[in-house]
């Protein structure tokens, strides 16, 4: 794309190259930097290690969800069932563990088992029955929500034991330089490294992009489309279970813990420059997108704006980001056409 531009438009090459470099860096990092600077201006303690790590702890569930969502989005789908899978994870986890630390490990295994089934089902129905993923996962959202209400009778029962909650809640105290290091941040960094590797350094990431860009071309190139798609949905569901474990740990059992998270993770991925119809996306940028959303929520808290204005601002920024991405795509298309 940039090759086409430099070859068709005259101008000083160095200047062009520099501009191109800025353009190539996803704008989300710039936005994130501005937001963090703004919050720090309002509250200088924000970038002290302890407080910033706490901010990362809070952002970890959404970042993990966004990473999973990215696999689905670049392969040309949506996963709307993430949020209700988070809720189910928390409610079913509390019901099965019933506050007894001895149950934690098998409960976590069972929860990941549920996640695996949900992912395979979403992927298989979308792929083999040719149901748009929007519909499949919307149906799954309702099914999971219904299941969660059914098993709890509408009022959550049981409790998450302390060693289950540790992942989202506990800290390692007195770490040199950092102060208190939250477990959730360690989980986040390990998973972020894993997802960057999977997305950018294995065939899976490239194949997912190819499937989302042009499914027919991908099939003709010998890509096993069904396997790629199902894998993408499975990754998304497993990240939802992970986010559920982190969120349940962070704030305990509640009925609406996962409400709206699927839209937040899709927003994060789009803020990170992924194309909504697939074929384009970047893992560090998607993670930064989630962090940006969380920074935005924090900033609006610090500004002390009345909450209706916050909701409006949130919506406007998301529309703005998507609009900007669409405008860039259109412009790129025109240039390619010329």
């Amino acid at each position, binding site marked *: 794309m940039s090759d086409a531009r430099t070859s068709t438009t005259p101008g000083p090459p160095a200047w062009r190259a520099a501009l191109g470099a800025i353009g190539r860096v996803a704008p989300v990092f710039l936005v994130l930097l501005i937001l963090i600077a703004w919050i720090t201006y309002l509250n200088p303690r924000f970038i002290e290690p302890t407080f910033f790590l706490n901010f990362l702890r809070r952002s970890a569930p959404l970042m993990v969800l966004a990473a999973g969502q990215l696999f689905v989005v670049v392969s040309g789908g949506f996963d709307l069932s993430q949020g209700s899978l988070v809720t189910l994870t928390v409610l079913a986890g509390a019901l099965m563990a019933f506050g007894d630390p001895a149950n934690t490990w098998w409960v976590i295994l069972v929860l990941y088992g549920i996640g695996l089934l949900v992912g395979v089902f979403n992927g298989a129905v979308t792929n083999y029955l040719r149901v748009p993923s929007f519909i499949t996962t919307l149906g799954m959202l309702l099914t999971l929500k219904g299941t969660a209400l059914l098993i709890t009778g509408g009022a959550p*029962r049981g409790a998450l034991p302390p060693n289950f909650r540790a992942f989202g809640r506990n800290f390692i105290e007195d770490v040199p330089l950092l102060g208190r290091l939250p477990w959730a941040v360690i989980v986040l960094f390990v998973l972020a490294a894993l997802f960057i590797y999977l997305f950018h350094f294995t065939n899976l990431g490239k194949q997912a992009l190819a499937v989302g860009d042009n499914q027919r071309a991908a099939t003709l190139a010998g890509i096993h489309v069904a396997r790629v798609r199902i894998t993408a949905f499975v990754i998304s569901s497993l990240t939802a279970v992970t986010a559920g474990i982190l969120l349940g740990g962070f704030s305990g059992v*509640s009925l609406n813990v996962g409400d709206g998270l699927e839209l937040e993770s899709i927003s994060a991925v789009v803020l990170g420059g992924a194309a909504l119809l697939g074929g384009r996306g970047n893992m560090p940028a998607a993670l930064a997108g989630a962090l940006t959303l969380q920074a935005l929520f924090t900033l609006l808290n610090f500004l002390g704006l009345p909450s209706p204005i916050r909701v409006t601002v949130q919506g406007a920024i998301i529309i703005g980001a998507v609009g900007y991405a669409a405008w860039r795509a259109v412009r790129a298309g025109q240039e390619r056409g010329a």
Partner: protein
Amino acid sequence: MLRTIRILLALLATSFLTLALAQASEFFNEAALLRELAFMEMEAEGPEGQPWVQAIDPTYADTSQYAKDGPWTVCFSNADVGNPWRVVGYTTMLAQVDLQPNIGRFIHIDAEGSDDKQISDINGLLASGDCDILIVSPNTTAALTPVVETACQQLPVIVFDRGVNTDCPVSFIRPIGGYAFGAVAANFIVDNLPAGGNVLALRILPGVDVLEHRWSGAERIFAAAGVNVVGAEFTGGSTATTKSIVEDYLQRFGNIDAIWMDAGATAVAAIEAFEDSGAPYPIITGEDQQDFLIKWRDEGLTALAPTFPTYQWRTPVIAAEMILSGQQVPERWTLPQPYITAETLDSYIRPNMPLLHYALCGCEDMPGFPERWGGR
């Protein structure tokens, strides 16, 4: 493109205007606040130890015209069973129905939180001709008023929990009310707050009369006492949002001395934010949910729990039988609304019940307790 933007801007402007108007509309009613506070001091009439059949300052309505031979069909149009408070209440209501053999059929329709659905639910019940009496827990006040008025012309109606703008129901059953709830909590904070202390108010969502009353009752008291309210935030009832908001406030102000809440479901999340930040525990007002009561006892908090008792779900079923038997019932049936203090705390803790169980269900001696309510 330009036109789209213009339309969007117009929509945005309209929504802002609507919001502004909604916020400006005054939920506060001085006389109601004073009446509720007076009720809190008054002795209720009725049998000892059974607050669900007690009434404060009642005026009785004659119901001989509705007397009729049993067994009866009692119909109930319910706003919603979507949160633990309503689940505990509805479970208690069903247990009460089981206690009354004269009720042959109990028809329940859940409006799932939708005004439109509840209006058509009630119309459907009226058209069926099956009901001898209709109990309504309205989703919202204004929207349900006309259909309740229609129902009143055909059969005796009982309204409880939330209100309607008409006197036509035979009995309107409700605990003392939101102003008293908010005011009791605010007074406790004012009495215990160190001089110049910071108070953070946590609210669920704007625009619901019961919740607005709670906050407007508290707001007046904080203002009169010159208390420094550093923020009033909406949590949407989410524990994660609550915890994040409280963490942000702790960071921003260094310390928060008291938390006032309009509902207790997220109280423990708010307390955990203090624990995780290493800040000293605040003075806090929650509600009668088990998780909060247990935390309060275990940590020795300075706390108070006003209640909106779930035992009010027993009363309409009892009232239905009284009306269909021709016994007089209170027209405005005001139930006692106790609050839990450090002295009475232990008597409300039930370790065998779910963490989100409401202590004031009045259900302990009912058949099927505790399993029916999820306890063991």
